[in-house]
């Protein structure tokens, strides 16, 4: 005859621990199925965007197992692969994250979403640092280069050697060169279309001469587009709006 054997006193607590553990495991994995931990996302995002810090804010709704309602990702001090920026913030509404790719290959991919927003802030200091870096790379030594944001304009005051400007561009303003240098002022506005930044000078003073509009128009044609913002995958964006604020240049889609 078979007898029903009750677990021994040693096995009983072990079974409780195992069953509790499995319940907890399934609960956590179920929760992970909808909202992956921020650390996993940050690890995957770090492979895409090189920056100082990444922050994530998710709104997962009140009920367990509920899909993500929104996700905001902020990249701080972005230097490479994109526009040098102080902050880049991406917002998804109702996103579905490819969890398989995240778990298996640590890849960030959003398979579907109902809304997407991207915003970029660039400060005058970041812009100045970028100019310094480029000047150093091109071995250009300048006496003065000041950037000031006066909405809706960017004001520049400069004193740079004439050799710092490409020969074909220099031809346009050759008659204004004095002591082999360009000293003056410029007020310009920015436009952005499909990730391309266009500068629109409205006033340029070169070596004490206010440049006529015909010359400014020629400069405008030559210098544009000023910058092509790279498209970082998987963020599929087209920046179309730009604004000059007190401390930042603002870009958004």
């Amino acid at each position: 005859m078979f007898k029903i054997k009750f677990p021994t006193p040693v096995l009983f607590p072990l079974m409780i621990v195992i069953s509790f553990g499995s319940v907890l495991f399934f609960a956590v994995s179920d929760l992970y199925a909808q909202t992956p931990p921020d650390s996993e996302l940050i690890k995957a995002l770090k492979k895409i965007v090189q920056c100082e810090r990444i922050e994530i804010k998710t709104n997962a709704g009140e009920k367990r197992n509920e899909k993500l309602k929104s996700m905001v990702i902020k990249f701080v001090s972005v230097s490479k692969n994109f526009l040098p920026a102080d902050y880049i913030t991406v917002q998804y509404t109702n996103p579905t994250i490819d969890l398989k790719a995240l778990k298996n290959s640590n890849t960030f991919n959003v398979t579907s979403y109902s809304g997407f927003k991207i915003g970029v802030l660039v400060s005058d200091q970041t812009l100045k640092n970028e100019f310094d870096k480029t000047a150093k790379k091109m071995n250009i030594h300048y006496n003065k280069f000041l950037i000031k944001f006066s909405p809706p304009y960017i004001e520049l005051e400069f004193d740079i050697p004439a050799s710092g400007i490409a020969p074909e561009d220099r031809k346009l303003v050759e008659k204004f060169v004095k002591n082999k240098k360009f000293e003056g002022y410029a007020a310009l506005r920015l436009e952005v279309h499909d990730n391309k930044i266009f500068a629109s000078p409205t006033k340029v003073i070169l070596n004490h001469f206010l440049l006529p509009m015909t010359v400014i128009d020629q400069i405008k044609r030559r210098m544009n587009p000023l910058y092509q913002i790279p498209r970082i995958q998987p963020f599929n964006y087209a920046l179309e709006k730009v604004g000059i604020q007190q401390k930042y240049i603002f870009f958004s889609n």
Partner: protein
Amino acid sequence: MRKHKLLLLLLILTVILVALIAYVSVLYWRGDVSNYEPPQPPSASSSERVQSDLQDLSQALEAYFIKNMEYPHKLELIQPEFLDRVAADPLSGKPYLYTLYETEGASRYRISVPDPNLYNVREFYIEGGKLVQN
């Protein structure tokens, strides 16, 4: 007759030369350091000012969101970092109305004119970057 023609040519040349010198002088005079300032904006009507205020406020709110990952609970929090001064409605002098709400789990806002009837419209606001005036 020939002398007259020569005189006329000389006169035309002198006029061209004077105009050229005057033009260059104006460019030189206007290129002074004291003129290192951006062009002045053209004067605008009250309605145009409201449109510009609402667009500036909306852009400043978006910039606040980019830095803080949320919209401010008060409009005043955008100054001075994103906007030097939060303007008031030019006709009534009252502050613009700021409403923060949530749809589909994402925060949204609306900035409206306190008395739209002063502009002969029923609604005058900006929402999601879109200006509505009807």
